[in-house]
């Protein structure tokens, strides 16, 4: 009596088809990623060595390592973070905990979301106008990092605001009812519970920043510098720009070198993302409500 009816069989066949189709789509999506990674590892892998990572380029960049660029990228990202995290977190706290819910706040929120969609080349031009010329920072790490900071600010704000809003309203009410001020509530209850989300947002932002080329190209990153930067007012090399240079601008480049640079850059980004995922899982596991 429990045998399949024709209708059951037809449904089962459709189910099967849909599943296959969706699976194939997903496969198509994963394929390019695997191909890119595979090519990079295959072609760039052999060149990676201690020398490659920790010495300067030589012979018109066709030999030697990438140390100044690697260090430069780390510098750029760190300074950008120092600027964007305090600013972004503060703005997000204001928007989600203090600002009244009216048309003005909503307009600001909308503006921030739209800011995230502005192409990076536009940010680059803004950076040149504002930091390099107007504030007279010249083409420097400071100008480049601030440009990166402006570009990633919306991401920090949105991530922070989302993790603040994920903290249950009941906690806030409990605090207010015991006579806590807004700031006491934020500092003792809201922030500690939102910090995991904020951190992951920040780390994801880092990985995005590390790969950007346009915003730093005109504001502080140099083609080639024989020395390491001494202060934030110096120019620096950077991995992303270096990759662009070695793959398109220099004749007689050994084929594996650009692949090696790309591999290092990707590994940096992937490491950051994995760190962010691990951190999120760790902090999630710790909190319970």
């Amino acid at each position, binding site marked *: 009596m429990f045998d399949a009816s024709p209708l059951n069989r037809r449904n089962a066949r459709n189910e099967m088809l849909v599943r296959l189709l969706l699976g194939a789509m997903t496969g198509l999506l994963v394929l390019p990623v695997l191909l890119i990674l595979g090519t990079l590892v295959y072609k760039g892998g052999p060149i990676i060595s201690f020398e490659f990572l920790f010495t300067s380029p030589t012979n018109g960049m066709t030999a030697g390592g990438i140390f100044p660029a690697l260090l430069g990228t780390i510098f750029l990202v760190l300074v950008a973070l120092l600027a964007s995290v305090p600013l972004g977190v503060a703005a997000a706290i204001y928007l989600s905990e203090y600002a*009244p*819910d009216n048309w003005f706040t909503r307009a600001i929120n909308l503006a921030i979301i739209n800011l995230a969609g502005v192409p990076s080349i536009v940010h680059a031009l803004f950076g040149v106008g504002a930091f390099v010329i107007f504030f007279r920072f010249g083409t420097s790490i400071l100008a480049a990092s601030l440009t990166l900071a402006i570009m990633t600010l919306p991401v920090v704000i949105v991530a922070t605001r989302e993790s603040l809003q994920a903290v249950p309203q*009941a*906690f806030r*009410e*409990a*605090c*207010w*009812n*015991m*006579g*806590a*001020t807004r700031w*006491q509530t934020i500092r*003792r*209850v809201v922030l500690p*519970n939102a910090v995991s989300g904020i951190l992951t947002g920040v780390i994801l932002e880092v990985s995005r920043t590390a790969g950007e080329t346009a915003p730093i190209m005109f504001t502080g990153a140099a083609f080639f510098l024989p020395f390491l930067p001494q202060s934030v007012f110096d120019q620096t090399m950077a991995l992303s720009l270096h990759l662009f240079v070695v793959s398109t601008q220099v004749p007689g480049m050994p084929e594996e070198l650009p692949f090696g640079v790309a591999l290092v850059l990707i590994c940096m980004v992937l490491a950051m993302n994995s760190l962010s995922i691990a951190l999120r899982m760790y902090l999630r596991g710790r*909190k*319970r*409500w």
Partner: protein
Amino acid sequence: MDAAGGTELAIRTRKLNLWYGTFQALFDVDLEIRHGMITSLIGPSGCGKSTLLRSVNRINERLGYVRITGSVDVLGHDIYAPEVELVQVRQQVGMVFQRPNPLPISVRDNVLFGYDLHAGGRRKSRAEREEVLEDALRQVVLWDKVKDRLDHKATALSLEEQQKLCIARLLPVKPGVLLMDEPCSALDPRGTEAVEELIWELRGRYTILIVTHNMAQARRASEECIFMLLGKVIEHTDTAEMFVTPRHQETADYIEGRYG
């Protein structure tokens, strides 16, 4: 805020009207609640019980569109007077919610949260804090159950324990008035009984105003009873009297379950 100032009244409202936008939720509410009493607030859903409760610690005004006329005095002082500091009001008037809402920190930190806030910058000595902690937990009959779990997360306690904890954490700041909005409705019968007993224990030391949908509970756990209907106070008398000889037809109908 200094002590009762000679008056016996813990809560007194005069011609209290409240609007949510254009919708009027309270109509000319006049109430006089004596010090140290347990008063239950009953009435059909939507009649304004929570609204009334929430205007006694000014939590309603967080919603920008609430408008109030009339006055609410707590312990002889108008809490809507312009010079009143909200934090002081909240300290004097504690609130317990329908769903227990302990903070996601340890049991100890939950109980001492308000205490530490109001201690200002001066950090109290360890011994002093431990004493306050034990006293508060003993008052809510929770000490023996949680004394070995003081550093566990409060959110891991059972619902009944959580609700008791939520009452306990109000006590260290020495409130005069406790407002409870259906404090037992998330609990099972045993938990309900335990929390009711506790409320009865607190009688005399605190003025308690408790909203309930449970007639039996109102009858068991309160000395006076207020019946509300459509934003108006219909009847306010001795609980025993209200349940035996209600003065108004509406009250009788409600008590006998004709409003649902």
